[in-house]
């Protein structure tokens, strides 16, 4: 990455390691090499490809770009005309505005709850177009990790054009992070954990998720924190027939594993691997992965554009929020009006378990603050 010319605090190879054997890396012209096993990791357009397998993931940009030919062309546009022009070029009419999503400050409105310092190192796993990573890089040091080369290259271009010298973009697998133990202050998994099992279709999806969380725990400092944002399996809307957002099947998240797997195979000819959980299950999952303490938040209205981060541990706070902030204009139509009524008038004990998206701050060890 030195070839980009921008000063980078975390550019040092000291914090990276071989994703295969954990050996230290050394720099060659055009690639990085593991000193222990000799595996070479090429650098494309200034982005280290620190993944053992060639990524099959098209990535966020790749999905949008698929129908428009050569993905590298997209990065060329970003470099020549600017990253904003490139996002505009792949904007599909009728879809949400990708450019606004990439710059909206509310993408990181949760950042106050994880305790960032200017010296913090944040690892954003599943960086996409850099909506989170680039905004956090204005306040601290960030490594943007994505399995997709196009996404990672795009974030690198965006960081370079925005003069974000504190941001490093790499291609890597979230389950085998090429990062040394105990270096990160904060790791973010935003809309990522549910997709992890799709890489391991033959394994128990829950175990795949626990392994991914353990891998994150490995790279966290003892006082580090994981920020996990994810959907709630028992969201009230699913009971009313709203399709599960990953599989796009109705009622599927409410079934047990065997039933939803069969249902998914029957309807879309693939197993149901996009596993989400309920509030107690997330706590259990994080505890099994080795996190010492978990704070749970309701992210309203969703984890992408968050307007409110409401603690759910104390049901009274969630009730106060629904009593004072919930606006019926956001809930139109019989379906949403029913949801609104539920949120306003249901017991707070139900409310905490039936919201749409959760944010969890999981502590690697007991922090001074909560000790």
């Amino acid at each position: 990455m030195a070839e980009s010319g921008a000063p980078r605090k975390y550019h040092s190879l000291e914090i990276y390691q071989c994703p295969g054997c954990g050996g230290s890396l050394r720099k060659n012209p055009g690639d990085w090499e593991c000193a222990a096993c000799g595996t070479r990791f090429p650098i494309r357009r200034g982005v280290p490809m620190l993944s053992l397998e060639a990524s099959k993931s098209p990535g966020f940009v790749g999905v949008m770009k698929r129908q428009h030919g050569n993905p590298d062309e997209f990065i060329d546009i970003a470099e020549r005309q600017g990253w904003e022009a490139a996002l505009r070029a792949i904007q599909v009419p009728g879809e949400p505005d990708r450019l606004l999503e990439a710059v909206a400050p509310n993408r990181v409105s949760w950042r106050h709850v994880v305790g960032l310092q200017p010296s913090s190192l944040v690892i954003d796993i599943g960086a996409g177009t850099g909506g989170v990573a680039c905004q956090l890089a204005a306040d601290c040091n960030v490594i943007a990790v994505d399995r997709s080369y196009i996404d990672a290259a795009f974030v690198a271009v965006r960081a370079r054009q925005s003069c974000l010298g504190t941001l490093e973009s790499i291609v890597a697998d979230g389950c085998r992070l090429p990062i040394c133990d105990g270096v990160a202050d904060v790791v973010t998994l935003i809309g990522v954990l549910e997709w992890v099992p799709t890489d391991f279709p033959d394994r128990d999806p829950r175990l795949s998720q626990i392994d991914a969380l353990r891998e994150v725990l490995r790279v966290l400092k003892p006082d580090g924190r994981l920020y996990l944002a994810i959907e709630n399996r028992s969201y009230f809307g699913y009971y009313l027939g709203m399709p599960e957002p990953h599989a796009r099947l109705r009622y599927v998240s409410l079934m047990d594993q065997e039933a939803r797997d069969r249902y998914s195979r029957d309807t879309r000819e693939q197993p149901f691997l996009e596993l989400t959980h309920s509030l107690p299950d997330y706590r259990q999952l994080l505890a099994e992965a080795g996190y010492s303490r978990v704070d749970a938040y309701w992210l309203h209205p969703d984890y992408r554009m968050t307007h409110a981060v409401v603690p759910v541990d104390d049901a009274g706070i969630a009730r106060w929020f629904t009593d004072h902030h919930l606006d019926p204009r956001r809930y139109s139509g019989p379906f949403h009006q029913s949801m609104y009524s539920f949120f306003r008038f249901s017991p707070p004990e139900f409310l905490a378990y039936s919201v749409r998206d959760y944010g969890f701050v999981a502590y690697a060890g007991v922090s001074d603050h909560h000790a």
Partner: protein
Amino acid sequence: MLEQIERYIREHAGSWHLDVSPSTRLRGLLRANPENDGIVREFGAGQIGTIVFWFRVDDRKPFLVSKILGTALTESAIAECANLQESANQVLGYRLFPKIHATARLGGARVVMMEAADGPNYEIHLSRAVSGPERSVNALRRVVARQFEELGSALLSLQAIGLSRTDVKWGAMAASNAQRFLGLCPEAGAIVSDASIGAMVELIDTMPLQTHLVLTEDHLANYLPGPRAVDQLVPNIRGLCDQWPGPVSGLRILLAFFRASPIREGFTDYAWLDALALCITEARRIEIVGTPVRRFLDELGMKSASPQVTWAFVMGVFFMRACQELEFYADSDKAALLRKEFLELAGDLIRIREVLKTGAEGAARRLTVPRLHRRHLDGEFQNREHADFYSFPQLAVPVPRWLGAVARFQYQVKDRHQWLYRAIRWVYRLPLDLLEKLGRASRPEDAGRS
């Protein structure tokens, strides 16, 4: 950041006379501004302001609010606003403005610690009366009457707080706002001529008004009860108070009230400007809003003003607000929608001004008489193309009222029969509490805590 704020609160709460012992657990509810959804792109993260409501564990309402600001406001500006608000509260004898306890620089941001106000804000109350499951015409009537009464008495009280208390002719400022508006929306040049601006200035200058402490924000959502996300914290409050005559801030709120989606979209054909004009002339009775608005204008000191003069002030305030919004949203997709809306409104303002020249009878004959119709109150907002500042696009699906029957019943019970509500809650919470206790006992990580 939350930890830093919490630490700061713990250290200083004693000097603010707040009950926070070292063992008290605090929880923060973080509220970000919807404008940060990329609608306004030039603002950096946090610059618009993020609010944290602080709760003591097991408290049912926040005891403190922290506002995380960008760098636009200086420490001295905040101190000046705080002093002014505090002296206003002392003169009034009640707390109109939230008390600002302290300002701190934490984690690279400026954080203001202020008193928490309880209760939903005006806009939430309005939208619930219009489109919540508890909606009804009577509920709306009650809400509108109460809000105007509160606003009117607050503004009346503010008139007693003179800063320079000079007589101001506001015409020149209104004219410069109108010219600025024409610069931002050149298409309006065909509608708003120099002659009409001149006539507006002439009418405004016939009525010199006194300056006093003004309410600087005109987002309806921020008045007056409720969790205040935006407040009187502005860079040059003394300058604003010297420039604006008192009634201008009241008219700004009035315009915001009618333009807020719960009211605007409740009127047939969105003819809310006609409704406002008829309220001013008292030519025809406008249901629900007519009487409260008229009383409010009287309290603003516009009792002696002719409808034409009042309307000239409304036009001046409109140009002022339009400029602010067009500049704020200049780079966003909303700007085009806004220009379209303001163009239509400017046309309506000029049309109504011509009608008002014909006197009250003429106005009653020639103005559309819009109605806040039960059908509109029962339905949802129809026009998705309309530029909307205070809400999100809505689906055009009429909702049968019976869908909210259970919720409405609960609401009414909660509202009127607290003892019954508590009894029902106790009964249905009993098994839940038991379940929760059993669940907690079976979870090893929680067993110790409980």
